[in-house]
């Protein structure tokens, strides 16, 4: 329990250890801790930010998707309508074409009939003329008797 030099020795040792701690222990440790704290805080903030960004992207995706869906439905309905139109048009075209073909065939037929009748008439008249020649044994003047022959042809 004597107070002696130990007191001063201890004070000197104390000062030495405190200075050592202040120079070589405290600063690196506290710096490392502060840095790590900052890093962790940054990481957490980044995570939160990216989560928010992801949410935003998801929302965007949803809107784009629904837009695309409505567009697709529109396109389908348009296509259906267009298909129906095309079918109708084709039907109408076909009907008119068939009508046209039918009428042209009819007119051709009528023409053919007329021409056949004409040629038949010609033949009949020549046959009649040659028959009459044979009967009369003389040459009938075709010009003189043209009116008679025309009458005859018209009667056939």
């Amino acid at each position, binding site marked *: 329990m*004597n107070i002696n*030099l130990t007191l001063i020795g201890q004070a000197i040792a104390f000062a030495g250890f405190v200075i050592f701690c202040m120079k070589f222990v405290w600063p690196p440790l*506290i*710096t*490392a801790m502060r840095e790590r704290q900052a890093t962790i805080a940054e990481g957490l903030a980044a995570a939160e930010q990216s989560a928010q960004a992801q949410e935003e992207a998801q929302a965007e995706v949803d809107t784009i998707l629904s837009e695309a869906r409505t567009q697709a439905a529109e396109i389908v309905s348009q296509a259906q309508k267009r298909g129906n139109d095309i079918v109708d048009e084709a039907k109408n075209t076909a009907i008119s074409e068939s009508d046209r073909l039918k009428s042209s065939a009819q007119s051709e037929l009528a023409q053919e009939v007329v021409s056949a009748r004409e040629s038949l008439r010609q033949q009949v008249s020549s046959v009649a003329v040659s028959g009459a020649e044979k009967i009369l044994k003389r040459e009938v003047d075709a010009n003189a008797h043209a009116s008679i022959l025309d009458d005859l042809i018209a009667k056939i």
Partner: protein
Amino acid sequence: MANPDSGHGELPTASEYIQHHLQNLTFGNHPEHGWSIAHGADQAKEMGFWAIHLDSMFWSIALGGIFCLLFWLGARRASAGVPGGLQNFCEMLVDFVDGSVKDTFSGQNKLIAPLALTIFVWVFLMNFMDLIPVDFIPEAAKRWFGIEYMKVVPTTDVNVTLGMSLSVFALIIYYSIKVKGGKGFLAELTLQPFSSDNKIIKYAFVPVNLLLEGVGLIAKPISLALRLFGNLYAGELIFILIALLPFYLQWALSIPWAIFHILVIVLQAFIFMMLTIVYLAMAHEHH
């Protein structure tokens, strides 16, 4: 049995055993023998102030060295990445001390936190020597090195605790004057707690205030030193008394006391640190 001096042939009495354990290894200038190691308490007393406790100094510096080495190794490769085991341990303590300092002291000071860390760990290590069975190291020192006296717990030496508390006291005075100026510090000592707007009454209060504040100021280092010393000295004494029991009975008392003492040594280290922070924080405050 529990008696350490069995090698001598004759067994010491209980009081001799206790006194032997409470005697420091003292080196000093004896009026008759000159510079020598004291044999016994009387010679140590006769040496007066110019003597040094070799055992206290050795253990306190060794333990302080362990503290520095441990934390230097932990801090050497300190990085902001994933900390290793030792770095983690050091950071835990640094964080704890930093938190304690920040709770109490709001100003900017590069010294207080490392000071508090040094006090906490160093005092804890010195207190921790108390948990080593009382005869282990003294017996080993005697058998192998022929050292007669060996007190292994530096904080049971009042010189050690006073050395630290007076250093803290010096810092209190230094920061008081640095922050408030010599005038401000003097005003703090003389013009409160009693004060008056009347100048004559104000100066009449000066002696009273000086007495009150002076006692308060002086009490700081004294109480700081004696609290730590008293706790550890008492604890050590109990361990020595337990060591007087027959060896087959000692565990029944020494184990509970050691377990209780684990609390005491941490608590005392913490109190010393905390009060140092508080005193230095007060030194920074303006009134």
